[in-house]
């Protein structure tokens, strides 16, 4: 037992136990269960009959066009929302960075989208994008940008666009705050030196601020990409995956298999596959953020 100045190993383990148990019970064990489920098939024949199917569920996935469609939808959703999030998030962070009276109120306003439940606000967005009475159509018409009302949730492309807008609205604060923390880490003196060097505001932004912000931006983008990949709430409530599966994401597809088609094995295969892809995505973006392989300091 190693003794350190402030405690023994055994004490440390004891402190870690409750958290470890919680995580084991809720995360570790279920993950194993899901993976094992994906190798089984449960048939309801009077009662549940389980049979071992090995990797056939994954084989089924490979040729499942609905799965590929869901994957495509998820990719579009993830890419577009992450990109928009990042751009808007940086812009908002720049606005929040200045010291002024009422900054607290502005920050509170910015936080609101993040704090409100996605599922509940999804209804709000469905109403905003309502084809007959929605305010989105009204505003666009008043601005002269559209001639006829758009059936947002009734058309595949526009439904996806509407969903992306809703998602970006909700998650931009998250990016903004992480980038803001990065901004606050840039010493004021460096910008003063740039002023004395004769760089105007735009040059300072482009050549000094943004390059120094790249680590924070990448960290935020990485988180956002992985979260967007697994998005469920917004899809289920706002579009239900429609119209005609045009906005169905992989999470929703898995859910349908679980609770509508009662195909637990297949649903588990989808869920597992989704997680593997999400982990891959995370790994890629993190590699981009830290090409020299140094350990992260996202604090």
């Amino acid at each position, binding site marked *: 037992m190693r003794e*350190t100045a*402030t*405690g023994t190993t055994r*004490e*440390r383990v004891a*402190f*870690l136990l*409750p*958290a470890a148990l*919680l*995580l084991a*019970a*809720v*995360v570790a064990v*279920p993950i194993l*269960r*899901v993976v094992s489920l994906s190798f089984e098939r449960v048939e309801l024949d009077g009662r549940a009959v389980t049979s071992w199917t090995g990797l056939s569920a994954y084989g089924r996935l490979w040729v499942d066009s609905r799965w590929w469609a869901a994957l495509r939808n998820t990719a579009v959703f993830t890419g577009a929302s992450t990109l928009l999030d990042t751009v808007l998030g940086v*812009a*908002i962070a720049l*606005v929040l960075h200045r010291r002024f009276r009422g900054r607290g109120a*502005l920050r*509170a*306003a*910015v*936080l609101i989208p*993040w*704090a*409100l*439940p996605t*599922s509940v*606000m999804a*209804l*709000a967005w469905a*109403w*905003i994008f*309502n084809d*007959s*009475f929605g*305010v989105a159509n*009204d505003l666009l*018409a008043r601005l002269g940008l559209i001639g006829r009302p758009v059936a947002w949730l009734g058309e595949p492309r526009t439904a996806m666009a509407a969903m992306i807008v809703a998602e970006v609205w909700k998650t931009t604060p*998250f990016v903004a*705050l*992480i980038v*803001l923390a990065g901004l606050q880490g840039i010493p004021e003196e460096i910008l003063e030196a740039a002023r004395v060097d004769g760089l105007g505001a735009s040059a300072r932004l482009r050549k000094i601020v943004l390059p120094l912000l790249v680590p924070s931006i990448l960290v935020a983008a990485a988180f956002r990409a992985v*979260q967007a990949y*697994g998005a*469920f*709430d917004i899809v289920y*409530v706002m579009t239900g995956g429609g119209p005609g599966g045009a906005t169905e994401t*992989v*999470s929703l597809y898995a*859910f349908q298999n*679980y609770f509508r088609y009662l195909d637990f094995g297949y*649903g588990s295969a989808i*869920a597992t596959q*989704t997680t593997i892809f999400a982990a891959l995505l*995370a790994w890629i973006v993190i590699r981009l953020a830290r090409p020299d392989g140094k*350990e992260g300091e996202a*604090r």
Partner: protein
Amino acid sequence: MKRAAFAVAAGAVVAWSLAPAAWQLATALKPDSEITAAPTVYLPHPPTLRHFAALAKRKPLGRYLLNSFEASAAATLVAVGAGLLAASALARMSGRRRRRVLFGLLLLVSFPPILLLFPLYEAARALGGVNHPLALVIPYAALALPLAIWILESAYRQIPREIGEAAVLDGLSPLQRLVRIELPLALPSVVTAGILVFIACWNEFLLALTFLTRDESKTITAGIASVGGSSIYEIPWGQLSAAVVVATAPLIVLVFLFERRIAGGLTRGAVKG
């Protein structure tokens, strides 16, 4: 940025952030005729509370809110409690190991939640806990744990090491040190962690939707989703908006009260959103 341009930008940011919720409030207060008017009527004229009343009759809103509160509060206590202990141990670990653990925690929260749904549902069914809001407590606590640990761990590390060593010399056990020294010194962060965990639990949807099928057991997120009614042509938008207002009002108040804490907690790498 020049003054005027900044003011415009700030105004745009505020408008963008608050407009959807504000629009829901406006809709909830409009009489039906104005809701379905074209072109859109923006301000309720005159405002009416009819939708709220009708909604309250149709759905047990109070029950929903109470369930949400029960589940979230209980989960917050468990998560913060376990988090306090774990973060204390983590803060004392050597740099590399600690970073690995924190990184691992980060990874955990990034998993698509759909992954864990089914086994948790199975377990809840087996233990007879379905349709009981408290069945959500353990899953919620576990999923919020990384967030709590992140915030608490960084707060602990702000405490100078010498203070912990002085406590050891004074003969305090690790638990006593936690309760007498670390907790009081890190109290603001504990509060922050509590707030963020609470919000995350309150907003959770997938597990609530799956676990709670009986109306009286539903949390507000699951309950609202069912306000729509069976037919897609019968969506009572007025009531729906009222439902959204009821569901979001407590959170809006929370945010304005605790905005500094929330912003501070989030910038420490919070992940769950």
